[in-house]
C-alpha cells in the first residue's frame, strides 16, 4: 500500500524554466516565436514593431528573431549575442525561456542561461542531422545538469516528414548521448515554420506517437527534480528586530538550498558544529509546518548560538563536505586573460565569499568531442576544464550532480570585479 501526501503552497500553476540553444538557421527563433504567438504572449504592438523593422531591413518574412534580439548590436548584426528572457503562460504552467545563442563563441552565454533551467530544447536541422553544434549543446545541458532534454528535430517539412530521417537522427544522437549524463531525453519531430508538433499534433507525421512540444513542456514532471533529501540552509541574513513586540527575536533568513525542514528537527550549524532544534519556521505570512527548496524563510532555533551570514544549517547526520580544497569543472568566461595555475580569485558559493588560489588545471575538455587534453596550461574564454582550487575559508559543499545550489560557485576577478568563471563541484 502506498500513500501520497502533497505539500503545495499556492493555488496557481507551477513554473518551468527552459533554455533554448541554437542559431537562427536552426529555426530556434521561429520555434520560440510560435510558442509565444500561439500562447498569445506576443502583443500586437510588439508584432507591429517587428514587422516595421523587418521591412526596413528588407527582409521578406516577418523576422520573429527581432522579438528576442533586443539590443541594437544584435539587430544590426542579425545575431543573438546575449541571453534574452521571454515569458509565456498556458492554463497549465508559467514558462520562463532563457534564449541563448548557439555559436561556440557564446558558450558562456549558454552556460549562463542553462544554469537555472529545468529543461533544455536543442534544435537539430533534419536535413543536416547531428552536427558538432548539437553535440556541444547537449553536452553543456548535461554538464549543467539540466534534468530534462528535448531534442527537437526541426524542418521535417523539408525532408518530406520522413520517419526514417527522424529515426536515424534519433539513433545517432542516442549513441552520442550514452557518453553523457542525461536523465530524461525526449525526441520530437517538428516543423516550427508550419507549426507541426509545436502546439498541435502534426497531421503530416501520423507515425509519431509522442507529445507536441508545448504539451511536453506542460506535462513533464519537474517537482522531484530538486534535492529534497539533503537539508541545506545557507544563512543569508540575521533578523534581530530589537522592538518591544519582538524583543528577543533572532531569526536566520535564507533560501532553502536542499531538503525539507520542519519545526522540531535537530539541526547542526557549520562551521561551529553546534547542534540545536528548529523552534519555528517563519514567513511574513505566518509560521509554516514544512519548508523546502526553493522557499525563502526564516528559521528560529531553540538555543542561542552564534550564527552569521555564510554559515550553513544542516542535519547532524547529513552534512555537506567541509573543505578548503575544491575540485570543479570550470567554464572560463572572460576574454581578458586566461585561467592559469597560481592565480588568485574571489569565489562565491551559496552565501559565502572567500579567496581562491588556482592550484592545478588538470585537463581541458573539448566541448565538441569530449576529448580530455591534459597538456594544457591555461583555459581561455569559453573553455571548460577540471580545476583544483584552494580557498582561504572552509566551504560547505556538495557535488554539483547531487545539488545544483550547494554544488555551484562563481569566480570573480579581484581587480575588475567581473564574473570570470563558473564552477561545478566534483567529488
Amino acid at each position: 500500500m502506498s500513500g501520497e501526501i502533497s505539500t503545495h503552497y499556492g493555488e496557481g500553476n507551477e513554473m518551468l524554466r527552459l533554455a533554448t540553444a541554437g542559431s537562427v538557421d536552426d529555426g530556434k527563433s521561429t520555434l520560440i516565436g510560435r510558442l509565444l504567438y500561439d500562447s498569445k504572449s506576443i502583443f500586437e504592438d510588439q508584432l507591429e514593431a517587428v514587422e516595421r523593422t523587418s521591412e526596413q531591413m528588407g527582409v521578406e518574412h516577418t523576422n520573429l528573431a527581432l522579438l528576442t534580439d533586443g539590443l541594437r548590436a544584435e539587430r544590426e548584426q542579425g545575431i543573438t549575442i546575449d541571453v534574452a528572457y521571454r515569458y509565456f503562460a498556458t492554463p497549465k504552467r508559467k514558462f520562463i525561456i532563457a534564449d541563448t545563442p548557439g555559436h561556440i563563441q557564446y558558450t558562456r552565454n549558454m552556460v549562463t542561461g542553462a544554469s537555472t533551467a529545468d529543461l533544455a530544447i536543442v534544435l537539430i536541422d533534419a536535413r543536416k542531422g547531428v552536427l558538432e553544434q548539437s553535440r556541444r549543446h547537449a553536452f553543456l545541458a548535461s554538464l549543467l545538469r539540466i534534468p530534462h532534454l528535448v531534442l527537437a528535430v526541426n524542418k521535417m517539412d523539408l525532408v518530406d516528414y520522413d520517419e526514417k530521417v527522424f529515426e536515424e537522427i534519433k539513433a545517432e544522437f542516442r549513441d552520442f548521448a550514452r557518453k553523457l549524463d542525461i536523465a530524461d531525453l525526449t525526441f520530437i519531430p517538428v516543423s516550427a515554420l508550419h507549426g507541426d508538433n509545436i502546439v498541435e499534433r502534426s497531421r503530416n507525421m501520423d507515425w509519431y506517437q509522442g507529445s507536441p512540444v508545448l504539451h511536453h513542456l506542460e506535462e513533464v514532471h519537474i517537482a522531484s527534480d530538486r534535492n529534497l533529501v539533503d537539508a541545506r540552509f545557507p544563512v543569508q541574513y540575521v533578523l534581530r528586530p530589537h522592538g518591544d513586540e519582538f524583543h528577543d527575536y533572532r531569526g536566520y533568513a535564507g533560501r532553502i538550498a536542499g531538503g525539507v525542514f520542519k519545526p522540531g528537527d535537530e539541526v547542526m550549524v557549520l562551521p561551529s558544529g553546534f547542534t540545536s532544534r528548529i523552534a519555528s519556521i517563519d514567513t511574513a505570512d505566518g509560521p509554516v509546518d514544512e519548508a523546502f527548496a526553493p522557499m525563502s524563510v526564516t528559521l528560529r532555533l531553540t538555543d542561542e548560538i552564534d550564527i552569521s551570514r555564510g554559515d550553513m544549517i544542516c542535519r547532524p547526520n547529513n552534512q555537506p563536505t567541509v573543505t578548503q580544497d575544491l575540485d570543479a569543472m570550470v567554464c572560463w568566461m572572460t576574454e581578458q586573460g586566461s585561467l592559469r595555475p597560481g592565480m588568485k580569485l574571489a569565489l562565491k558559493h551559496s552565501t559565502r565569499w572567500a579567496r581562491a588560489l588556482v592550484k592545478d588545471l588538470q585537463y581541458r575538455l573539448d566541448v565538441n568531442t569530449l576529448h580530455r587534453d591534459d597538456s594544457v596550461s591555461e583555459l581561455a574564454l569559453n573553455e571548460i576544464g577540471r580545476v583544483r582550487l584552494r580557498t582561504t575559508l572552509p566551504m560547505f559543499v556538495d557535488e554539483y550532480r547531487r545539488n545544483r545550489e550547494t554544488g555551484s560557485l562563481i569566480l570573480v576577478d579581484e581587480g575588475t570585479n567581473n564574473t570570470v568563471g563558473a564552477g561545478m563541484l566534483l567529488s
Partner: protein
Amino acid sequence: MTTTTHYGLDHLRALEAESIHIIREVAAEFERPVLLFSGGKDSVVMLHLAQKAFWPCRLPFPVMHVDTGHNFDEVIEFRDRVVERSSLRLVVGSVQDDIDAGRVVENTGPRASRNQLQTTTLLRMIEEERFDAVFGGARRDEEKARAKERVFSFRDEFGQWDPKGQRPELWNLYNGRYRPGEHIRVFPISNWTELDIWSYIEREGIELPSIYFAHEREVFERDGMLLSTGPHARLMDGEVPERRVVRYRTVGDASCTGAVESPAATVAEVLAEVAATRITERGATRADDRASEAAMEDRKRQGYF
C-alpha cells in the same frame, strides 16, 4: 506502507521566494542600498516583497522617489500614506532642483517631457547619498532592452549600462562587487510579468493608487494615447479635452503617461482585462518608449533605470 510526498510551489510563490532572496542578498552585501519607489504598481509590489523579506524587522534601507514635478496628485498622496504607515525613510530627488540649478535644460513645447531629465537627478542623488545598490522595479517582459538586463546590473562611475559587457549571472549567485564611485542596480522582480504583478496584488490584497482603477477624467487624445489635462499638459491645435472613464496601466511622468479607456474598477476586473489584452503596457501608455526601436536601450546606457 510507503508514502511519497510531493513538494511544490506555485509560480507566484516561486517568484516571491526568488525576489525575497535577491532583496536579502543586497541587504547583506551592500553598505547603502535604496529602493526606488514611485507609487507605481511595480514599485509597490517590490516594496511589499522587501517588507516581507525582513519581517518582523523594519526595512533596513530607505526608499527614494525621483520626482519629476509632473505628478498625479493621487499617487503622491498614496506615496506619503505608505511612507507614513510603514515608517519608511523617504528620500526625494527633485528634477526641479536640477532644472533650477541649470544642471539640465528642460525641453519646451507641448510635447516636452521630463522623463529624460530623471536620469541626471537619479545619478546625482546616488552620488550625494553614496548609495551603492539601487533597487528598481523594472521587469524583463516590459521591453526588449530590459529583457537582456541582469538581476544585479553593474553601473560604472558615470552610471552607464554597457549591454555588451554585462557580467554573466549564474544560478542564484549574484556578484555585487564594485569599486568606489560605481554602483549596482538591482531588479528583484525581473522575472515577473504584468499578469504576475496583478495576480500577486490580488492574492496579497496590496493597495494601489486609485488611478489604476476606472475613474472619470478629463483627457485629450495625442498620438493614439489619452493624456490627462491639467497643469502639466499643453494642448495643441485640434486637441479637444473630454471626460472619459479611464484607468492607468503604468504610472510615470504625468506629461507622457497615457490612460486607457476601461471600466475595470476592481483588482479582479483589471486582472481579467490584463489577461485578455493584446497590447503591451508600455506600448499602450508610454510616449517615452516610442521615440525609436532602441529608445529604452539608449536611455538605459545613460543611466536610466
